[in-house]
């Protein structure tokens, strides 16, 4: 396949587990974390630091008449209070460009200028000697806002954003084939109107930013960073008018990311600017209410979708118009979630014609961006609802209907005339039908149908449903890894990746150990630091294992080759008969002598070694893995639910996630990703939602209103990890595993609830709340 570099270090790993790869080993990350010795953002402290507190809009939309900080400034211990005038020279928060043009005027200023557009928007920043004091002072800042009507429905006609600009910055259009002709000749046309609620990642650790300026070295440091350190570093440098090499970002432990953490937010800029200007380290830790109001939201969309099908239920065309509720401003993702939704909607099915228009609309809510499986959680719900509706209309079994439409293995790689995030969609590998069979078998679908019938006969309201999904992962274009063996034999791996708590260190160490021939547990993994590696693309879009994992594989292969070449003449053997085991170069045939440790080789390759004269010293290699195409994991979710007729509560009793990810580097960690991802999907399906009153006041501002699943809501969860379709696009065959657990949960539970109610198509909205279920139960009552 094209899309990757080729070279001697591209050797593919054979299928099946190796010495370190494919093993469920314990994590390198855990020992400090279970001892309470981690370093999360709030744990970072510097001498002389001051604390920042942000004053936020309490109205959803209005003209900012005045901000009076006199009383706040007078409070002893207050160092400074800033309003927009104090940061007028800092440009708005930028976004990562795509093809979409014209979004700049919709970006968020660091502090609100003359309008506020959502409850929670930063208006002023208070800096004080301690955090309690900063909060006291923030309460003294008097804000005068003249209210304006709030726009809260993204599907309503666009309103005015600012003079000459309305609330629809862009429409993302994609498509192929002759859609109108397909509808004209269709055996049947099925139309649905479906909505997904407003959700967010809500990591348990809130955001934090600790900035300090080191005048001795003219260096600005930002601690508490995550996800996209290098991009954020470059942008912070640009916005503050400094060269990038004078700004460094540091990621410590990160208490969950899920898409929202580690984006560039106004608070990051405020902390950095204050550290420079006030000449004191500045610490900002978000509180939970702020986290609900100010950290990215996601997902809220409404789709009006139509399908044209033939008499056998084969898709002829899909025509979708959807409205994406972006909230008040364009954030760092620009229109990417709309792009992803539009590009990924067709999923696993053969589709001759497709037309989609994604209306990117601004409202007076917290701005939105990505949340785990962005654009896919939404569109899998929409597409799989559509497949169920087609099955009902044509009286075909929903599983059989899916089978008729799944792309076949023989058609892989399957190019779809669509692009996503600027890269052409080519479903790289897969045996969709096989995984569907495996999933049904594992879930015991047949027996389940019988037991459901029996339980219904005894009066229970139970049902089962399933959904198929295609994920995307391994977004390029590049990532690099440098591996160095020092003179004690210790291996250090420096990566441009980031970790938001998934276990990246362990996974990269396992890959390095496999390729190099050392134990994984002694490898020191460095990531999330802009001062240790020049470039990096961070941790998002299930890309780390694919991109940084592949770069690790290549770099470790290169170090291995170097070690063997250096050792061979000294051992008076040819490199071909040598291998590395547990860090010792020895004969492949198992003879333990002669041998040489990696430490000895590293010393031979040191800068003072005569043998290295004229060459770059060190047992070290840096490799960059490039990819033009994403790789597409896929899977099936199956749900069994039981509805309480008295309360309308939906209880998920059993659940299966079957997910083909090409190769599991660490099956235990993959299961963890899937289980955790499922719990988040479950939240979105049944419990979680940001609600607003008619004036735009947020109603979900505590953990008591925004309900995250707890241990007692989790059903019996089964995870089937398949490795039947390794990706041809990287040397390990990996596809990302970060989002498959989340992707289809809303879709599968919706199908199961329909089935329990005996009302096909009843569920049109996520989350499925008890009130809705009660109404549906009443509707069914004779």
């Amino acid at each position, binding site marked *: 396949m094209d899309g990757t570099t080729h070279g001697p270090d591209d050797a593919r790993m054979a299928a099946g587990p190796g010495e370190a790869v494919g093993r469920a080993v314990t994590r390198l990350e855990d020992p400090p974390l279970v*001892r309470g*010795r981690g370093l999360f953002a709030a744990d970072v402290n510097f001498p002389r630091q001051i604390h920042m507190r942000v004053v936020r809009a309490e109205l959803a939309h209005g003209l900012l008449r005045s901000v009076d900080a006199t009383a706040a400034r007078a409070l002893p211990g207050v160092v400074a209070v800033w309003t927009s005038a104090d940061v007028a020279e800092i440009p708005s928060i930028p976004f990562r460009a795509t093809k979409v043009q014209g979004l700049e005027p919709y970006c968020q200023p660091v502090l609100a200028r003359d309008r506020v557009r959502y409850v929670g928007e930063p208006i002023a920043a208070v800096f004080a000697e301690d955090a309690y004091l900063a909060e006291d002072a923030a309460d003294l800042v008097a804000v005068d806002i003249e209210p304006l009507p709030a726009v809260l429905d993204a599907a309503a006609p666009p309103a005015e954003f600012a003079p000459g600009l309305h609330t629809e910055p862009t429409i993302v259009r994609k498509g192929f084939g002759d859609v109108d002709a397909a509808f004209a000749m269709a055996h049947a046309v099925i139309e649905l109107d479906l909505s997904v609620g407003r959700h967010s990642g*809500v990591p*348990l650790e809130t955001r934090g930013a600790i900035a300090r300026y080191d005048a001795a070295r003219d260096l600005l440091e930002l601690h508490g960073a995550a996800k996209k350190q290098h991009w954020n570093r470059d942008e912070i440098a640009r916005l503050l008018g400094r060269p990038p090499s004078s700004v460094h970002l540091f990621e410590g432990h990160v208490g969950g990311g899920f898409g929202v953490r580690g984006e560039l937010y106004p608070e990051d800029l405020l902390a950095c600017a204050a550290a420079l200007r006030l000449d004191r380290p500045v610490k900002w830790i978000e509180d939970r209410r702020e986290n609900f109001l100010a950290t990215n939201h996601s997902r809220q969309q409404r789709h009006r979708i139509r399908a044209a099908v033939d008499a056998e239920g084969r898709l002829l065309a899909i025509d979708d118009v959807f409205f994406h509720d972006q909230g008040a401003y364009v954030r760092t993702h620009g229109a990417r979630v709309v792009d992803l939704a539009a590009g990924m909607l067709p999923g696993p099915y053969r589709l001759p014609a497709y037309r989609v228009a994604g209306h990117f609309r601004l409202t007076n809510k917290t701005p939105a961006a990505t949340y785990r499986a962005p654009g896919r959680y939404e569109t899998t719900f929409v597409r799989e609802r559509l497949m169920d509706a087609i099955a009902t209309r044509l009286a075909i079994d929903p599983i059989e209907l899916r089978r008729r439409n799944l792309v076949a293995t023989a058609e892989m790689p399957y190019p779809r005339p669509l692009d996503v995030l600027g890269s052409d969609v080519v479903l790289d590998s897969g045996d969709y039908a096989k995984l569907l069979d495996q999933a049904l078998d594992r879930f015991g679908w047949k027996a389940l149908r019988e037991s459901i019938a029996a339980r219904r006969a005894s009066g229970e309201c139970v049902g089962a449903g399933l959904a198929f999904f295609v994920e995307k992962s391994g977004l390029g274009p590049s990532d690099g890894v440098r591996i160095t063996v020092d003179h004690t034999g210790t291996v250090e791996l420096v990566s441009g990746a980031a970790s938001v708590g998934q276990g990246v260190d362990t996974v990269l160490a396992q890959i390095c150990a496999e390729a190099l021939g050392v134990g994984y547990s002694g490898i020191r993994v460095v990531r999330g630091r802009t001062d240790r590696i020049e470039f990096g693309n961070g941790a998002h879009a299930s890309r780390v294992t694919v991109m940084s994992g592949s770069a690790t594989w290549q770099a470790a292969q290169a170090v291995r080759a170097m070690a063997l070449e250096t050792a061979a003449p000294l051992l008076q053997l040819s490199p071909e008969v040598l291998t590395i085991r547990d860090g010792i170069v020895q004969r492949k045939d198992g003879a333990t002598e002669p041998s040489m440790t990696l430490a000895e080789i590293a010393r031979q390759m040191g800068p003072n070694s005569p043998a290295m004269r004229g060459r770059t010293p060190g047992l070290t290699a840096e490799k960059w893995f490039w990819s033009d195409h994403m790789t597409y994991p896929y899977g099936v979710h199956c749900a069994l639910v039981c509805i309480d007729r008295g309360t309308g509560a939906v209880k998920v009793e059993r659940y299966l996630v079957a997910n083909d990810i090409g190769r599991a580097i660490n099956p235990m960690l993959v299961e*963890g990703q899937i289980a955790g991802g499922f719990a988040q999907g479950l939240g979105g399906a049944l419990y979680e939602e940001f609600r607003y009153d008619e004036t735009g006041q947020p109603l979900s501002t*505590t953990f*008591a209103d925004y309900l995250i699943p707890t241990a007692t809501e989790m059903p019996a969860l089964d995870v089937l990890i398949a490795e039947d379709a390794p990706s041809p696009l990287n040397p390990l065959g990996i596809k990302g595993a970060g989002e498959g657990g989340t992707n289809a949960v809303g879709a599968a539970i919706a199908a199961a609830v329909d089935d329990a109610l005996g009302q096909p198509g009843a569920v049109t909205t996520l989350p499925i709340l008890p009130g809705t279920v009660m109404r549906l139960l009443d509707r069914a009552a004779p």
Partner: protein
Amino acid sequence: MSETRRITLIVNGEHREAETPVRQHLADFLRGTLGLTGTHVGCEHGVCGACTVLVDGHAVRACLMLAVQAAGHEVTTVEGLSLADGTLHPLQQAFCDHHGLQCGFCTPGMLTTLVEFLAEHPAPSEEEVRLAISGNICRCTGYDSIVAAALAAARALRGDAA
């Protein structure tokens, strides 16, 4: 400036004496004043459980208790769970063995909650473990691995082989 008071208490077996603002909650006191940052703050409204510590052996939300209320009491934080020689507590070990943590932010609260629970319920059922941690939010794991770790730790604490 708010009023302060000098308090003495036992933290992880050590006698500590420190000045605290009267309005400072126990979590901020442990983290800020004593530098024990293992106790995490996830919500400050008593729902997430990340700040859970043991006060006289009972699990308490340190964000809902003022530091001055802890005067004269015995507090155990996650830093105090392992043995003096550094050996992990069986719960800590089980969390590592069973992938009971991802980001690790909820972990200190999960561990302290379970220390109390297992002391009172040495042979719990899976259901009982789920109930015991139902007041602790974990956004990463989906809880199954935490439940598995707790059951394994219970066996280890009872002295059962694996």
